[in-house]
């Protein structure tokens, strides 16, 4: 028993500090990816509703690609592909600089585009659930397009899209485990190293399970708060 306590202690003897750093990487990566994913996803959804066929086509191609590719492959493409591509390009132009694509940034980008392509579908279905009359009502009271979107459509959109988006958030939280292959020390990489070095696989992978579960529970607490907030605005409307 004491052995396990030492293994799970903070400091040079135990692995808890390493795993906590892993958890920090996981959470910060997911939090940094979320705004990118939401923003791109929102605009892709707008693009899909566009009357301009080329924009619509581009948006559809985007979601087809990034929903179709495995997340791991997207990550490899961003992390290794961009670096090799940029270096080849520079070499072609006669420069020999070493370009380093940061693994955190490429993780953010790769998970962000994947998140956005799924999120766009969630936004799309939310958009379709809002009756046309809501837009017309906005214009009728003299709001221009941006104001209508911000004041009338967006609050309803958030409420309608929230269940789908919270699903995607939890998936994102777990997908961050993929970044260990590009050299980021997230929860899974740190617990994996600890498990293999100490030969205490159950202990450390069990701990990883608990951390992911805890993150999911904390997430659902915040999602609930957001839901309450959107409902409140629904009542006063």
């Amino acid at each position, binding site marked *: 028993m004491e052995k396990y306590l030492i293994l799970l202690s903070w400091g040079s*003897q135990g692995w808890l500090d390493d795993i906590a750093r892993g958890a920090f990487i996981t959470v910060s990566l997911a939090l940094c990816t979320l705004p990118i994913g939401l923003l791109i996803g929102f605009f892709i959804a707008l693009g899909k509703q566009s009357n301009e066929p080329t924009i619509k086509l581009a948006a559809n191609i985007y979601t087809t690609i990034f929903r179709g590719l495995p997340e791991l492959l997207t990550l490899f493409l961003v992390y290794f592909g961009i670096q*090799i591509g940029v270096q080849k390009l520079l070499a072609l132009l006669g420069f020999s600089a070493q370009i380093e694509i940061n693994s955190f940034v490429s993780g953010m980008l790769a998970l962000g585009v994947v998140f956005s392509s799924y999120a766009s579908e969630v936004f799309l279905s939310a958009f379709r659930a809002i009756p046309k009359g809501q837009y017309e009502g906005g214009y009728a009271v003299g709001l221009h397009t941006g104001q209508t979107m911000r004041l009338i459509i967006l609050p309803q959109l958030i409420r309608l899209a929230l269940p789908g988006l919270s699903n995607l958030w939890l998936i994102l939280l777990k997908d961050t485990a993929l970044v260990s292959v590009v050299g980021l020390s997230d929860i899974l990489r740190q617990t994996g190293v600890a498990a293999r070095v100490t030969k205490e696989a159950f202990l450390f992978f069990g701990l990883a399970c608990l951390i992911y579960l805890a993150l999911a529970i904390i997430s659902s607490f915040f999602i609930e708060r957001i839901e309450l907030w959107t409902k409140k605005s629904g009542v006063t409307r």
Partner: protein
Amino acid sequence: MKLSLKLALSAATVALTMGFSHAEDMMKLKIGTEGAYPPFNNLTADGKLEGFDIDITNALCAEMKAECEIVTQDWDGIIPALQAGKFDAIIASMSITDERKEKVDFTKKYYNTPPAIAVPKDSTIADISPEALKGKSIGVQASTIHFNFAEAKYGESDIKGFPSAQEYQLDIANGRVDAVMDDVMVLKGFIATPEGTACCKILGTIEPDAKIHGEGAGIAVRKGETDLVNKLNAAIEAIRANGKYDEIAKKYFDFDVYGS
């Protein structure tokens, strides 16, 4: 300058005593390793790297008068990371194989240990021959030379691939596989743990098949970096000759890890 460096290199290879101090200024190298493969390279609880590969790396860098930085990278992405320029060389017990030679260049081996088979203590398997293991399940780490070897030579057995050594070790401890195959070092390390001692024993070592197991573990660099390969080869020979290699090897192993 280039020519004189090459001359110096070949001279160093022959004489072994000459250094590169008169050649280029301090060479900077980034070395990639896995960090989860004890006793060769693994991270410790306080985040430091240790193991045979790490000590060898430091000895080689000292020999080459190079300033080295060791970075860790998950095994699955280690060759792509080398190719993408995240580091300049992989010193992570990587076996030299023809398949890998298509993607990277290797130095000469810096060690070569034989593969072995471990079985549960109460196992009825008589020996390590493919006949004795016919119809039995063998756990092996996937994407390794051991997996390729098992597939080729133990075709009558049920070969099960595992993502890492840790997982097949769990499965043999739980009795879900009849035998496991890996490098003798790795299995010895496993047997030394409380779980390993309780469950298993080493059945025997296998004569390596040069075609599959290759020449041993080498240092991988990007294709075409002959200069670096030459420097590393010279450094390996130098530490072999001056006793530094044996000093490190003795710290970790009770047999000749360099092999014949």
